[in-house]
């Protein structure tokens, strides 16, 4: 019996790690090729080989000095951060109220908000553009932040509401008996408890802004707060010839910040799934 268990465990291990390795390779090979291509000189781009014959930083120099790509990275950063902060300012108190307070029309209001998630927001791009031009939000950073909320806020309220609702009952009342106002009970007890999931949502909201192409493409111009993803697209399709090495550099530059953020916030994400118990 013991032998059987051991052998089975070994088989499971081999199969498990083998499977993971295949998945990992599928993901990593394109990224590896992107990373290496970014260091190839222009004339080597179409050579089918992994390592560049001569390592070159020309593409990097071109992307930053000529294309000013770091400016667009900065724009993406601000777009993502602003979207996340704005979303949480609205969604956290909103979700708290939906999750833990009773008031008339609560369910109906909640369903309307969640329904907004089902609406294909691609359809909103044109009306948004017209409206934004009219009210002066076109080609501005706040205009971008606001546009993203169509998707982020309903999603965040939906996720957070469930979290707040599942926290033990009586926590706020207990805090109120022991010296808190209703707001302080929320601030001192409920908010710290929701910190891990708020961090996760902030990351997701940031990614929405960071990765967005649709709104940024329609709501901004080349002179305005255009984000990196639009520039990558323009580089790939615009002009008579595609600078593949520069495109790879841009892809790398746009891909790395979220990874760094994820590594920094990882501990909090793990807690999101671990904080339970009595």
């Amino acid at each position: 019996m013991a032998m059987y268990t051991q052998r089975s465990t070994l088989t499971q291990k081999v199969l498990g790690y083998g499977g993971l390795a295949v998945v990992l390779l599928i993901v990593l090979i394109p990224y590896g090729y992107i990373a290496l291509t970014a260091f190839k000189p222009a004339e080597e781009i179409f050579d089918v080989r992994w390592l560049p014959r001569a390592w070159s930083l020309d593409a990097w120099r071109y992307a930053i000095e000529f294309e000013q790509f770091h400016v667009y990275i900065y724009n993406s950063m601000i777009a993502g951060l602003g979207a996340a902060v704005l979303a949480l300012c609205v969604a956290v108190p909103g979700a708290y109220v939906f999750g833990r307070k009773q008031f008339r029309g609560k369910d109906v209001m909640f369903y309307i908000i969640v329904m907004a998630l089902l609406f294909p927001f691609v359809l909103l791009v044109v009306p948004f553009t017209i409206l934004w031009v009219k009210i002066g939000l076109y080609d501005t950073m706040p205009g971008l932040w606001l546009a993203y909320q169509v998707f982020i806020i309903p999603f965040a309220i939906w996720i957070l509401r469930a979290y707040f609702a599942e926290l033990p009952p009586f926590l706020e009342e207990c805090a109120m008996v022991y010296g808190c106002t209703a707001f302080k009970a929320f601030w001192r007890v409920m908010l710290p408890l929701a910190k891990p999931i708020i961090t996760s949502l902030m990351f997701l909201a940031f990614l929405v802004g960071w990765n967005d192409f649709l709104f940024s493409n329609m709501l901004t111009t080349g002179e305005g707060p255009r984000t990196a993803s639009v520039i990558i697209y323009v580089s790939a399709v615009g002009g008579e010839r595609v600078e593949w090495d520069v495109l790879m550099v841009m892809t790398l530059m746009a891909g790395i910040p979220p990874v760094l953020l994820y590594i920094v916030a990882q501990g909090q994400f793990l807690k999101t799934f671990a904080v339970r118990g009595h």
Partner: protein
Amino acid sequence: MAENIGIRVHNLRKTFQRGRVQACRNVNLRLAEGALMVLLGPSGCGKTTTLRCIAGLEQPDNDDAIWVKGRNITRLQPKDRNLAFVFQDTALFPHLSIRRNISFGLDMHKTYRRAERRRRVNEVAELLHVEDLLERKPHEVSGGQAQRVALGRAIVMEPDAFLLDEPLANLDAALRVEMRTEIKRIQKRLGISTIFVTHDQEEALSLGDVIAVMKDGEVQQVGTSHEIYHHPANFFVATFIGSPPLNCLPCHVQTDNGALNLASRAFQLPLEAAGVASSLRNQGEVMLGIRPELVAIAPERPDTVAARVSLIEPLGSRTIIILEAEGVELRAMVQGETSAREGEAVHLRLDLERAFFFDNAGNRL
């Protein structure tokens, strides 16, 4: 006199859903300073709502409902009442250590210095035997320990009163009895007025200096354990208290040649001899309520009732005998063991002098 009243609930009315649900209708309670009162009743009787009104977690309909130490606090915020509330669900803050949980109330009132807070938390932790747990998180302690911590969080405030809402309901039976004794001991030692809500009559009888029995949002009776058990005010109190439960027999009072008799399907008993006739004269249908310990197996006499033993439940120190007389079920309780056997025909003597009689409305006669 007035200054000795710790907590006074005055004509408390509380309705929900714009008057459609009446949780409390005219609840009146007076609790002497330093005493322990138990609010006892079935679920939905308004006892928890009463407690939550006192704590300020619910707003009563009338403005002069809640008085603590002679001060009307009906419309104060919960945080300004200086009352400590212990919930059924311990409601410890999961993100704070046990120490921070206990000192939570002190931390919220900025009047206390750090050293003072520390000293008080340590004292309370020692009192409740949780001093080794102070640096742990709530999910790392057991249910009983968590409830101790919840008590500690209340005690450390040195409040005007403790309000405990079924604090032991989630504990297992043995722990519940242990904690019950401990709560009573601590309450006596601290001398802080306490209201304890429970639906468990044994808990109520053993804990309370006074017990208020509630039903349908109204107080039925307030009294000591002895008064509630031996002198119930009405049918509800009599049947709600007591284990095994009160024997209830519908009877009618008959006049036979000027002598009063109590008649039912199972028996006809003279009332004169039992000395309870005066209050029953002119009554027709009555409900006889008799505690199982007042029913005894006896030799046959004119005033005994023929019955058959249907079941015997030996409980060690006492035995419950379940009997059947003409289709009516009766319970008798005797100390120690019984010589009766299941199926045996016996005669019962009912101690009518100490039995209760109720009219159709459930009022005591």
